[in-house]
Structure formats: C-alpha cells, structure tokens
C-alpha cells in the first residue's frame, strides 16, 4: 500500500443547471484498501459525488484525484483505476450477459481472448455462469446487479464504486454479495459504497462519511460514527395485544405503538433498553420477539433533528 489516497476529493462543488446546489464543497481522503461507506439521506449528494468521481457528471469546482491522478489533468488514466456499479441498471438489455462483461473489458483495452477468460471467472464467482447466454433483460433484479458488479470488475480496477449495490436484492443474495465484496477488498481493492441499509454499512465498512444537503457532516471510523448515530430503533412483538391502558402507562417512555402487537423502541445515544423493558415487565406486557428496524434513513432523520 502507498500513502497516496485511493480517492482524494477537495472542495468539490456541484451546481446543476437548474440552480440546484448538490455539493457545497465536499472534501475527503479515502486510503488505499479501505472499505468506505458514503452515507446520507435521499438527495444528500451521494450519487452526484460518485458520478463526479467516475466522470459521469462534471463538477462545478474543486479537485478529484484517483490514486494521485487528477481527473482533469489525465482523465483517461484516472478512469482506468475506477470500476463503477451505478444505482440504475445501465447496460444494453438486448445483449447477452457474457457480452456485457466482455465488451466492457474491450472498452478498457483488454484483448478479447483475455476478456473472455476474465468474464468467465467473474460470472462463475458471482453465480451467473448458467445465465451467460441469456439476454440481459430476462434476468432478475438481483442478477442484473451482479452483472453490473462483474462488468465493473472485469478490468481489475483499484477502486470500486458501488452506488446502492444491494437495493432490491433479497437478504440471502445480499449476504452472498457482501462475502464477495469482502473478498475482493481483502485482495486489495478499495471499495466505496453508498447504502440505505445500516446493517450493510456496519457489516462491510471500516470507515464512513455522512453527507447531508451537499455537505459532509460526519467522517471517521464506522465504529465512531455508529456510536454517534446510535439512535437504535427496534420493534418489539408482544405476546398479548396492547391495550389503551398499557399505552397510558407507557407514556414518557420512548415506545410507540405500531399495531396491536408491535411497539417501536427508539433509544438515543447513552440510553439503555433496560428502563423500557423493566417498565414493560412491570405492567405485564410480555415481549416475544425483538427486531432491529433501524434504517439509515431513520438514523439520518434523527441525526439531523439532533
């Protein structure tokens, strides 16, 4: 590993033609080999930042360096370091799966023979080998996402940008994708990911930045950030239906009735579950099951309110 950051963003601003200020001077350095989360509510500027780094959107001002190469001074070299998995499907739906990957390798100057070997490996690794000759449009949403990951990795980029890579992917598949991403990160690929799943960021990322309204409001290790953001939200399934009397007695506790058998418990930093559970126990409400219902969206809402 070198000391040169994988990604260095300095005072990047972006104002769209209709006057919308998407980024208001964002700066951050992401070291080589990092697994980095870029978090924030919808419309915060995450996708704009990812798109600027990958050359799909022009910045208004500021500087972006990829592996020490400025995207303005030597865009072709800078682009060659990057692999992008965008939020929306952006491959030719009329192409065969294998051709999506092989043709992309060609755009990076990889000879066709070599590209076919790499594409085969990628498709096998991502469980798409059986579908290699299918028309892309016939794949399920999860498979399409994996095609985009294979396509982004076929030229062996040093930096992988993933914009909501597991949106709409079922839990089992998501975990499989996580394992794959962990593996390529361990092999040296720097990964930057945006996500709405708190669990995803917790499981995968070592550091993170939180962006809101075009500004970075928090940045640091994932552990530190989670501490600051530990507005834990969980859902409690009760054994018996909740009565009006129960709810009257729970006034003053951070518990909200979701339906007759479900309560939502939201804890601020420093608060513990004990008080709430003691109270529930004292009034005879038995909890059958506890589920973590926290989404990053809720965390951001809480954070912004705080």
């Amino acid at each position, binding site marked *: 590993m070198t000391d040169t950051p994988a990604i260095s963003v300095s005072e990047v601003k972006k104002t*769209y*033609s209709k006057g919308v200020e998407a980024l208001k001077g964002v700066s951050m350095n992401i070291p080589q080999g990092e697994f980095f989360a870029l978090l924030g509510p919808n419309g915060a500027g995450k996708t704009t930042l990812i*798109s600027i780094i*990958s*050359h*799909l*959107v*022009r910045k208004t001002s500021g500087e972006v360096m990829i592996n020490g190469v400025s995207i303005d001074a030597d*865009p*072709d*070299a800078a*682009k*060659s370091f*990057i692999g*992008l998995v*965008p939020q*929306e*499907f*952006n*491959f*030719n*739906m*009329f*192409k065969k799966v294998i*051709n999506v990957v092989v*043709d*992309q390798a*060609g*755009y*990076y*100057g990889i000879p066709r023979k070599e590209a076919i070997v790499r594409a085969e490996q990628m498709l096998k690794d991502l469980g798409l080998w059986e579908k290699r000759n299918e028309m892309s449009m016939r794949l399920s949403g999860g498979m399409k996402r994996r095609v985009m990951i294979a*396509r982004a990795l076929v030229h062996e980029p040093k930096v992988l940008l993933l914009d909501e890579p597991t949106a709409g992917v079922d839990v089992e598949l998501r975990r499989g994708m996580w394992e794959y991403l962990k593996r390529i990160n361990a092999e040296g690929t720097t990964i930057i990911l945006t996500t709405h799943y708190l669990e995803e960021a917790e499981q995968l990322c070592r550091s993170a930045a939180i962006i809101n309204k075009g500004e970075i409001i928090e940045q640091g290790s994932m552990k530190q950030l989670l501490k600051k953001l530990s507005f834990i939200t969980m859902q409690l399934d009760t054994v018996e239906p909740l009565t009006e009397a129960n709810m009257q007695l729970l006034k003053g506790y951070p518990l909200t009735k979701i339906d007759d058998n479900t309560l939502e418990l939201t804890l601020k930093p420093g608060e513990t579950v004990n008080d709430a559970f003691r109270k529930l126990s004292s009034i005879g409400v038995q909890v059958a099951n506890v589920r973590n219902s926290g989404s990053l969206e809720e965390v951001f809402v809480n954070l912004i309110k705080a």
Partner: protein
Amino acid sequence: MVREETTRLFRIWSQTLLPPVVTNTLYYVIFGAFIGSQVADIDGFSYMAYIVPGLVMMTIITSSYMNTVSTFFFAKFQKHIEEMLVSPMPSWVVVAGFVTGGVIRGMLVGFLVLLVSLFFTHLVIYNAFIIFGAAILTSVVFALAGLVNGMFAKSFDAISIVPTFVLTPLTYLGGVFYSVEMLPPFWQQLSLLNPILYMVNAFRYGFLGVSDVPLTTSFAVMGAFIIVFLVAVLWFFKKGAGLKN
C-alpha cells in the same frame, strides 16, 4: 464497438436491411419501369439507368444517418452510453466506432439496393474508385451528422425530425430523380446550395460519367462536411454536451 454494431445490424435485419430494399424495389418498379419508360433519356441514359445511382446514394445517406442516430440515442436512453463514458476509451475511438457502424450499414444496404437494380437495368461502371470514394465519404458525413443528432436528442421524436423534415426533402431535391439542368435557372441556382446534390452527382459520375456539377467540387463539399461534423462531434464529446450534467 464495431463488432457490437455489426452484430446488431444482422440481428435486426428485418429493420435495418430489408425495408430499404423493399422501398427501393418499389421505386425501381414505379419510377423506373412504369413512369421511366415514358420519360426521355437524360444525358444519353435511360431514366432507369439515370436514377439507380441516385436511389443507391439516397439509401446510403438514410441508412448511415439512421444507424448512428438510433444506436447512439438508444445508448443514451438505456444509459449504456455510460459504459463508454466511464472507460478510458478516447472520444475519437467512440466516435470512430459509431461512425464505422453507420458506414457498414450504409454500404451494405447500398450494395443490396444496387444488386436489386440489376433486375431492372444493366449496370454501367465508369470509374469504380469514384463510386467507392463518393459512397464512403457520403456515408461518413451522414454517420457523423446522425451522431450529432443522437447526442442532442432528448426524445424519440427528436431523432425523426431531422430525417423527415431535413434529410428526405434535401435528398429528393438533390438530383436523385432528375438532372438539375432540367430545372428553371432560379431553381438550378438554389439546388447548388444543397450539399446532397454534390454527393449524388459524384456517385452518378462514377457509374455513368455524367454530372451536373464539377467532380472536384463534389469531393471538396464531402471533405468539408466531414471536417466540420468531426470537429463538432469531438468537441461535443469533450464537453459532454447532451451526455453529462
């Protein structure tokens, strides 16, 4: 990119290759055989023999243009143009890929339409180099023009406006069906402003050895349009016009 374009061309042959062949067969039958038999010779050639180069050139123009405008707009619409934009592939390679696809389609369809003409008239070749040169250069001009249209188009309507309201009238008025010498002086002069006139005439000269305009002027017009469109397309690519926010 060329492989992709060519594969697509043959995969959807019923949309890319067949329609111009059918349309031009009808032109040959109606204008060449039925009406043409009642029309006097032009520059010593039968009307059918006279219009074949014009019709082939019209096909090359339309096919080259439609290929780039449709594939490029579709790539934008489906967003797979982003595959190229994020890659380190230089702009000129992207442009060359799309243009080559347009030229291949233009030349292939032109050749098929020329083959069909053999059922209606004898093929005369005055100079094969001029035929080939005029066909290739014209195809490049319109493949580039289609690319400009595709870059700025924001809807499917926008990719049909130019072919319908600009390309088709200019082609019909570009001496495909007649010699401009048959027109009154004012319309003759006005026709000289139509760049397609020069392309059709250079192509016709290659077959019949007759042209309404000097051959050097025709090739100069083609060269000038290629330079203008090429510079414009590369500039637009560099600026991300119509492609990037």
